[in-house]
Structures are given as structure tokens and as C-alpha cells.
């Protein structure tokens, strides 16, 4: 069963609706004691990364999250929180991945936020992307991205530059796009995560 870590950043209705459609069981985590009942975790998140980090810190869950050894998936800002630092709010983050979250430059010909469906290319073999064809489209809406790093980037997308669509390190996973809004392949990814 998936434990969704609640810390007050963004709504999770669409995520739980997707899990309901897929028949994947989940529960809510508000305190450290809640962590015990689950075999995997999702860290959701929408909005401002710096503000989200402050909210997460105020729950007191940070040391326990860093020590998790079961599969853990960060989505959007939830994934950005797992990096070392974000330019959004000049914030130090969980540092599970020693890489940075950066702002898309505003002076290019590319529009920001990066809004819509873009292609995702797996860079490594991992069950998270099982049954998802190379170059499938996923739904994005974000102004900050996680830098590309061959060690941690599990899948990449190209917008302004090549960035991390997904990251992976040990039991920790992250996706920048919104699987709960990304059609059938988004649902496949959530299903894959529930079986990792």
C-alpha cells in the first residue's frame, strides 16, 4: 500500500483519483508513526519549492523521509524537494540527490512555464518505465527543472535544454511531469511504481 506524504503543499485529489481508477490502495501520512503501515511512498507537491520545503520541515518528517529505504516517488515539486537545492526561493532541500533544481531562463525563445505534453526518453533500464514506449508524451507544467545528470537522470526531456524528466537513486524516484494527468502512460507509470 502506498503512503502519501501530507505536508500541505497542493491538492492531491487528482492523484488519489488516478490511484482509485487503477485500484491501487493508498493511505495518508501525517506523522512519522504513520510511515510504518506502508511499503512505498509518494511525495506529491505543487507550487513553490522553497515554501513547500518549509511546510515539509514543519511536519518534522524530514529525517524520517531521508532515511526511507522503501520505494519512494516524488512528483513535480515533490521530486524537486529531493534535490539538494532549488533556485526557487534560493532553498536548501532534502539532498537525497546531490543535484540542483534550476529556473528555465526567461530570455530565450521558449515560453515559461513549460506547459503541455512533451516527450520523455528513458536513459536507463528501470521498471518504473516498463511498457512505456520511448518518446511517449507526458503532461508538464513547471517553471523550474532538475538539471541533467548522467548518474541520476532516469529519463530526460528536451525543453530549452535537456533536463531530468525522471531521477532515480537506490529506492528514490522522481518525475517532473504529472503521471496522474498524463493519459494511459501516466497511469502505466503509477502502476509500475506500485509494483516496484
Amino acid at each position: 500500500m502506498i503512503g502519501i506524504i501530507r505536508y500541505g503543499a497542493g491538492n492531491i485529489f487528482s492523484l488519489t483519483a488516478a490511484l482509485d481508477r487503477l485500484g491501487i490502495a493508498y493511505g495518508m501520512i501525517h506523522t512519522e508513526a504513520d510511515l510504518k503501515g506502508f511499503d512505498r511512498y509518494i511525495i506529491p507537491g505543487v507550487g513553490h519549492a522553497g515554501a513547500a520545503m518549509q511546510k515539509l520541515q514543519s511536519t518534522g518528517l524530514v529525517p524520517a523521509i531521508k532515511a526511507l529505504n522503501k520505494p519512494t516517488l516524488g512528483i513535480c515539486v515533490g521530486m524537486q524537494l529531493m534535490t539538494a537545492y532549488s533556485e526557487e526561493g534560493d532553498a536548501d532541500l532534502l539532498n537525497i540527490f546531490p543535484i540542483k533544481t534550476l529556473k528555465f531562463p526567461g530570455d530565450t525563445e521558449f515560453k515559461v512555464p513549460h506547459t503541455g505534453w512533451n516527450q520523455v526518453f528513458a536513459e536507463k533500464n528501470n521498471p518504473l518505465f516498463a511498457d512505456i514506449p520511448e518518446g511517449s508524451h507526458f503532461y508538464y507544467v513547471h517553471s523550474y527543472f532538475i538539471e541533467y545528470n548522467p548518474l541520476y537522470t532516469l529519463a530526460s526531456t528536451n525543453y530549452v535544454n535537456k533536463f531530468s524528466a525522471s531521477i532515480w537513486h537506490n529506492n528514490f524516484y522522481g518525475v517532473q511531469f504529472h503521471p496522474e494527468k498524463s493519459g494511459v502512460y501516466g497511469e502505466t507509470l503509477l502502476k509500475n511504481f506500485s509494483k516496484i
Partner: protein
Amino acid sequence: MSKKFFLGAGPEIFEYAKGLRYNMTAAETTLWGHIKGNQLGVRFRRQHPLGIYIADFYCHQHKLVIELDGGIHLNPEIAAHDIERQKGLETDGMKVLRFTNNEIFTQLEKVLTTIQKALSSPFRGRGGLTKRIIPCLDVKDGRTVKGVNFVDLRDAGDPVELAWNYSQQGADELVFLDITATVERRKTMVELVKAVARQINIPFTIGGGINEIADADALLNAGADKISINSAAVRNPALINELAKAFGVQFVIVAVDTRVLDGKNIVHLNGGRLPTEKQTLDWILEAESRGAGEILLTSMDHDGTKGGFDNGLLKQVNDAVNIPVIASGGAGAVEHFVDVFHKTNVDAALAASVFHYGEILIPDLKAILKDNNIEVRV
């Protein structure tokens, strides 16, 4: 198609190109390994015939030619020939990038960055990001109001079933415009949004009657991805700032209805019936600076005519802002969608009746857009 695609190259050129593809140089093989298969978000071809030339690599979508020069090209006679050849291609509207084999072997990162820069200009929203097709549903008291003519719907008035149908057809996003005018409005909207979010696996926007933060908050928590505000923003522009601050710019679409009055595009309210003092482009720029994350621009002059989008205005607006623009008003045929993307480079196109009445089927539309080198999700 083939004439433009190959600039009328003859059969002997094709034979020769085929031979070259089998005998790529080490530098060509290295670069090909980094650009093939859509890795840069666009498709490249290798040894592609163009008139009397063969481009080492060619991206038709961006009309970009990449040439690799080995030692032999440093010979002055051959270098002069290369310059002639480049001029010829540039006359045909091609952009030519030239690298030495040595650059491929020693500065590949820099080479790829240069290529990506060329791909990002002058086009916007590229790098694999698709153009979006958005059906729009009018809803009153929780029911779809405009006539809908899908054959296999059990209940054509049920917005959830209709939405599900569109998501299955390949719509990229949905917009619900709620025109309910009763005091129960917020409650029915929230119920609708929840029902949609439970069933639909693509993003959706809800608009109509959003006047304050509390309205938006209720819709966000019910699962809406974005809200669209129109009259409320015109009457109280600070609402845009408040919404962007509370929920992020990505949550806030500012919808603008425009109509030409005395030769000027003027913002209108009440479905185009009530002119305001605001000029359309000025208002859009103000909305962007206040925190709009996206603009939904409807030409009331074109709306309902089925004669095509207002490409002139859309291009002007799209060139002026740095946020996504959704074109609306006037779609009547597939060509109108091809035109609006080719001529204005907007990010998305919205339509209602052509989709509802089945005059245009989304899979057919996307196939044709793709044939016209417009990036779409299929």
C-alpha cells in the same frame, strides 16, 4: 510535399545519398548517435538529398542543415565550393550549421548546444513540446448545454461522459465553461470538477463565474488543473495577482474576448456584447505582467463563422508574450488548425461545435497536423 522536402532532387542524387548512408564517416556516426530518433525533440535525416546537394543531416521541421567537414574541406577549392553550396541552400530558406570533424570528437557538448539553439529559434514551444488540441464544453447546472452529436453517447448532456470520450479520442486538455447563473453555482461547479477529476486522465480547466480566491481554492481542491477568469479580471485586475500568488501562475488562465471596433481590437465582456475601454494587446500584456500563466484568446468576430482563426491578431499576441497562447474562435475545418499553428505558432487551439458535432474527429485532425510537420501527441 516531395518537391519542398527534397527541393526537386533527381534520382541519381537519391542513389548516391543511399550509398553515403552506408559509408558514414566516424564523425558522422558519432553525431548521428546524438541526434537520431528525436533525441533533440525533432527528427533528423542523414544524407538527405536537397536539389543537387546532399545534406549530411537535415531537419525538415526547422529547415536546418548540418554539415560536417573533414580535412578535405580545408582545401581552398573545396572550401569555395562549400560556400557556394551553402549560399544555394540559404536561398532556399535553409539554415546551415557547419562543424569540423575535430569539433565532433573534442567539443561534442558545444556542438549539440549550438544545434539546440538553432532548433529553438525562430520557433517557440519546440523541443518536443506538442501543440495542444482542446475541446471546450459549455455547462449549465452540471449539464452540457450546446448540442452534442456523438453517436455512441448514452447521455449527451453528461459532461463527464463527454469529457471521457474526448480524452479517449486524444484530446490534450479540456475546458469547461460554466454558465450557471444561480446562487448554487459554486457547489455545482465543485461537484462537476470532482466528477471529472475522478474519471479523466488529462488536464482540464474550469472557467465561468470565478470571482474570488475562495472560488478558485474550492475548484483546485476538487481537482481542477487550471481556472480561467475573464470579466472578473477585467473588472478587478488585481485578482490575477492574487490568484497567481496563492496558487502559482500555471493555475491561472486569463480568457480574453475580443472584437474589432473602429479598426481596433477591443476587449469585450458578456460574450462579446459589452465593449470595454481596454485594447486587447495592452490588456493581454498587463495580464501577463500580473501573473497570468496562459492566455485564452477568443475572437468574437470569428467565433461561430467557421471561417478560420484570427491569425493576424493571434500572431501579434503570440509574438508579444512569453506565456502560452490558446487560439479560439472560428475553427470550421482541419486546415484552420494547420493554418493557426503554421502562421501564428500559438501553443494550443480550442474549439467547440466542430468537435461536438463530429465534423472534425480529433484523431484525424492530429494525423493531418502531423503530416504538416506540426508536433502533436498521437
